[in-house]
């Protein structure tokens, strides 16, 4: 399904153009449809656990991950479905994981907040906000010590920036000049409360300014802008430079988790969202620029819907794992206390 994890189609740092733009549009539609479907499945109690959707933020996942290689280690947080899909994880195996089935990426032991797909370089998502930022540094250090040009990427939200591990990590990454790109999806909300209630510093780029790392704030709903900025950063990190921080201003269309009544903010108006929706924006931009046709846009959505429906059926057919599995996987090598 799909052609995830494909090699970068343009040199890093170039402006977005066809055919990369169409590939991005397809990836974004796959994420959008996947997550809308997951929302429905959650209400039907077919997927388990806390489900955090990234609807409205697909552009960042797509523009970043589509430029990475399979051997570039990626870490994500609790809102990880989009990153996983964009990095190449098969949607049917993500869905099976959310349903706790044996064909899930983690055989049903991880769930929505703990997706791992080693084959595609998804090293892990975490339910502890910002908790795996230092792990991305560790992967970058491994590249440094072993040799190679893999680039580690860590996705996190603006809520993670107030945590100790973020600040310790920024210090360490800059001190050791690690080839890691920190991608902050700043949606302005940390769970239920606006950024202004957590900190006096509005921009994450300003938080890290004293460390002197290369950084940029972009409109995260402008896929072309994210693509270009990240591509430029990637070229630097590929040559062993870093760390770098890309702050993407996004909008979280849904609540913090599925079922969150979002009483704490007014919904964005449909008209405004039409303007800001990263998928619609890229569709308008791409058709105007001649990167793809209106028919391509329609096909991208239709193909995504077909793929995700097939994924749902695949996941539903997958059995639950055997009761012995948790005990077998406590330790690598199988020893038990």
């Amino acid at each position, binding site marked *: 399904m799909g052609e995830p994890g494909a090699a970068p189609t343009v040199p890093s740092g170039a402006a977005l153009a066809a055919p990369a733009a169409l590939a991005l549009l397809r990836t974004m539609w796959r994420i959008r449809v996947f997550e809308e479907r997951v929302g429905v499945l959650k209400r039907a109690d077919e997927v388990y656990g806390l489900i955090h959707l990234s609807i409205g933020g697909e552009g960042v996942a797509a523009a970043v991950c589509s430029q990475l290689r399979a051997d570039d*280690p990626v*870490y994500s947080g609790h809102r990880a479905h989009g990153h996983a899909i964009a990095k190449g994880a098969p949607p049917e195996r993500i869905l099976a994981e959310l349903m706790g089935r044996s064909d*899930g*990426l*983690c*055989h*049903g*032991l*991880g769930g929505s907040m*703990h997706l*791992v*797909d*080693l084959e595609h370089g998804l*090293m*892990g998502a*975490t*339910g*502890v906000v910002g*908790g*795996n*930022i*230092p*792990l*991305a*540094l*560790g*992967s*970058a*250090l*491994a*590249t*440094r*010590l*072993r040799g190679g040009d893999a680039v*580690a990427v860590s996705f996190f939200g603006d809520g993670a920036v107030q945590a*100790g*591990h973020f600040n*310790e*990590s920024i*210090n*360490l990454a800059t*001190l050791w000049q690690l080839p890691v790109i920190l991608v902050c999806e700043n949606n302005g909300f940390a769970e239920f409360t606006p950024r202004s209630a957590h900190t006096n510093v509005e921009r994450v780029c300003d938080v890290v300014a004293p460390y002197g790392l290369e950084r940029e704030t972009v409109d995260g709903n402008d896929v072309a802008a994210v693509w270009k900025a990240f591509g430029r950063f990637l070229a630097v990190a590929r040559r062993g430079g870093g760390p770098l921080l890309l702050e993407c201003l996004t909008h979280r269309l849904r609540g913090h988790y599925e079922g969150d009544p979002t009483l704490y903010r007014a919904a964005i108006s449909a008209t405004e969202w039409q303007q800001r929706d990263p998928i619609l924006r890229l569709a308008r931009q791409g058709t105007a620029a001649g990167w793809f046709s209106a028919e391509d846009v329609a096909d991208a959505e239709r193909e995504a819907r077909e793929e995700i429906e097939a994924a749902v059926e695949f996941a539903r057919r997958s059995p639950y794992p055997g009761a012995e599995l*948790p005990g077998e*996987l*406590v*330790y*690598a*090598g199988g*020893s*038990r*206390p």
Partner: protein
Amino acid sequence: MSTTTYVKAINAALAAAMRADERVFVMGEDVAEGGPYTATAGLAEEFGRERVRNTPISEGAICGVAIGAAQSGLRPVLEIMFIDFITLALDQLVNQAAKAHSMSGGQLCVPLVLRTQGGAGQRGGAQHSQSLEAWLTHVPGLKVVMPATAADAAGLLKSAIADPNPVVFVENKALYFKREELPADPPPVPIGRARTVRAGGDVTVVATSRLVEEAMTAAGTLAAEGIDAEVIDPRTLVPLDLDAIVRSTERTGRLVVAHEAVGFGGFGAEIAAAVGAAAFDSLDAPIERVGAPFTPVPLSPPLEDAYLPAAPEICAAARATLGLAAVR
């Protein structure tokens, strides 16, 4: 054979592991300077500061970096200078390292060794003297090792570095400079196998870390009273060699469990409960536990000396299992 110390044995085992495997590297606060107890002395000179990495005082982040490096193919040996500061790294250890293999459905492995040291008796005060190993034994996915001798420290460190799982290696600062005869290349000691330190038929004494030596002193005292104690050192708490303890207890009919950590909620409770379940019919007396009182470690020398569990408490507990409580 040559005379060495517990800390020198650790130092030599680290150097040997780094020579044998390029993936092995050391990181932690002041490790390139040797650290406060010289455990890593000389490593930076031999292996350079890329592989012997000084870190800022950021226990959480450095533990996370070690985890990320481990699951990316390296073999980090992370030092947390005092176990008291492991609190700052527990999120990484508990939520990331311990669960990575399981939560990923077996895709990730974290071959991390976290070396740290605990124990009181050096007037370190309540934040530099604790024995916190019981917390770690409660987390599925971590292995917990507590060597009591230089030979076991060297041999267990070898096994810990080779292990594909996160291993917390808990040393005891009071043991660091004890002298011991050791072969030049001590053999690996398998994780999960207890050692019978002294054979005896009247009472089984299970002791960990520094209290192994205290148990041996106690066994000497008890022998003079006609009581023949068997002393067992589990060496690793997770995985625990329960069979060795149960077999011994079935023979002696009596069990004393001794550790330096606070008795209440300590690992001794787990051993007592497990033996109670496995060998209840063999027990001739209630199981006795020896541990520190339920207070923070006091600074004042007479108070700290009184706080520390030692041979007299082990003797009293052994006599109690023999119905000789009056001797207490």
